[in-house]
């Protein structure tokens, strides 16, 4: 067995941590929202029965990468797993999580449509601004943002692992400064409206799959470089 597969198997020793948390969350979210809409069914018109509970799926997955990087990485390297193998294994894990998240949420979306909104006309997954007619493009719209969020949290966790709290603080200060500078530039040059119009006029697949994929490349590359240079 090569080192990448060893690292992946070690990461999979706790599937409840690496895979299951977002699914518990979405399951609980569906159950709670279904119960709530069943209780207040007469008081809410059908067109107002959308919820933002889908965000629970994405937010609850944010803890996986910090756990992997700050806790499992040093333990794996103590067991003589190379940094490179750990990085490859994590990339494979994230890819698998993305595919499962995309296909799984798209399947739940089909169930939601087929059951007329979980029998209470609720829209939890089939939200109007992310709806796709094709099953696989719908899976992309659900899965790629998950991958982007994972890449960002992995990058931030790697900064914390290598540079500590001060590094993390400096990163967020720098990020805030750059964001403020870009916003000021857009406002001063009266181009902010054009930028908003540009993104608003893009196909939904570009907004929810292509641009998040660019974030994956950017932060994923940064994460891999940091991890390969990391002391244990």
């Amino acid at each position: 067995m090569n080192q990448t597969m060893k690292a992946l198997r070690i990461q999979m020793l706790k599937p409840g941590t690496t895979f299951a948390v977002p699914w518990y969350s979405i399951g609980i979210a569906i159950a709670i929202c279904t119960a709530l809409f069943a209780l207040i069914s007469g008081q809410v018109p059908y067109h107002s029965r959308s919820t933002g509970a889908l965000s629970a799926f994405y937010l609850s997955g944010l803890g996986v990468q910090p756990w992997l990087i700050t806790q499992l990485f040093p333990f794996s390297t103590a067991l003589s797993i190379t940094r490179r193998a750990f990085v490859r294994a994590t990339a494979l894990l994230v890819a698998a999580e993305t595919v499962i998240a995309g296909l799984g949420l798209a399947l739940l979306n089909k169930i939601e449509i087929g059951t007329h909104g979980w029998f209470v006309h609720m829209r939890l997954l089939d939200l109007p601004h992310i709806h796709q007619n094709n099953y696989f493009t719908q899976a992309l719209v659900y899965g790629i943002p998950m991958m982007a969020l994972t890449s960002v949290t992995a990058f931030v966790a790697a900064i914390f692992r290598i540079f500590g709290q001060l590094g993390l603080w400096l990163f967020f200060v720098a990020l805030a400064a750059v964001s403020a500078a870009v916003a000021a530039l857009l406002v001063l040059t009266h181009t902010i409206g054009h930028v908003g119009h540009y993104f608003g006029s893009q196909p939904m697949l570009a907004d929810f799959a292509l641009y998040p994929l660019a974030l994956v490349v950017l932060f994923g590359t940064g994460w891999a470089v940091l991890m390969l240079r990391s002391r244990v």
Partner: protein
Amino acid sequence: MSAVVVEDLTMRYRGHTALDGVSLTLEQNTIHGLLGRNGAGKTTLMRVLTGQEFETSGRVEVFGQPPRENAAVLDRVCFIRESQKYPANFKVRDAFAAAAIACPNWDQGYADRLVGEFDLPTKRQVKKLSRGQLSAVGIVIGLAARAPLTMFDEPYLGLDAVARQVFYDRLLEDFVAHPRTVVLSTHLIDEVADLIEHVVLIDHGKVLIDADADDLRGRAVSVSGPSAAVAAYADGTPVLHRSELGGRLRVALPRRPEGRAEGVSVDSLSLQELIVFTTNQGDPA
């Protein structure tokens, strides 16, 4: 082929020189004692040997190859650290399952036996273990991994004397049955004195002693008796340590003087005394 060859290894970080031109060779199938005070550079050396730390300069080879990101080398190495951190949600059995995945020579039957001997609760979360139990988890992994190069960095913290003796006994038994290269970093020199075959003493990032343990034990002596007689006998030999009380003198010498010992008592110096005196003096024996 030697298990480890280090030449002129220097390791600096943030203005601190942790290792300063270290050169040493660790032969295969030997138990090596890596000794020295806190902060001497022992852990840093082991971290470099296992690719966890990157050397600033010098040559490091483990089984003939650089260890840095080298799976072929690291598959043959197991490093148990004093402050080894385990994932917070891992149970003891998860830690052993991970070791079983990572270590090609893992012996599950032997691990189970050691778990019984150390009375480890395998279903308990690692974060709920006592300091001694945590050390025992590391010891079980280090022994059952049967890695061709096994390094223990202060593996006994929190272990009581009985458990420490179990560790020494099992280490020796398993070493005889499955010879491999063991590096044992420890402060409890007297406890391991009969176990180690080769001694490396590091202080302030430099190697002070790199010698066969039997040679050291037979070489260094303690001479005591009337001050004048001891001084005459020890004349011309470097003195590691001297203490005088009421006209009687006791000196520790790195080697037996050539002259005849008349009116003085000459005894072997314990390994611990030799290490302590040499470290305090700061010069190689």
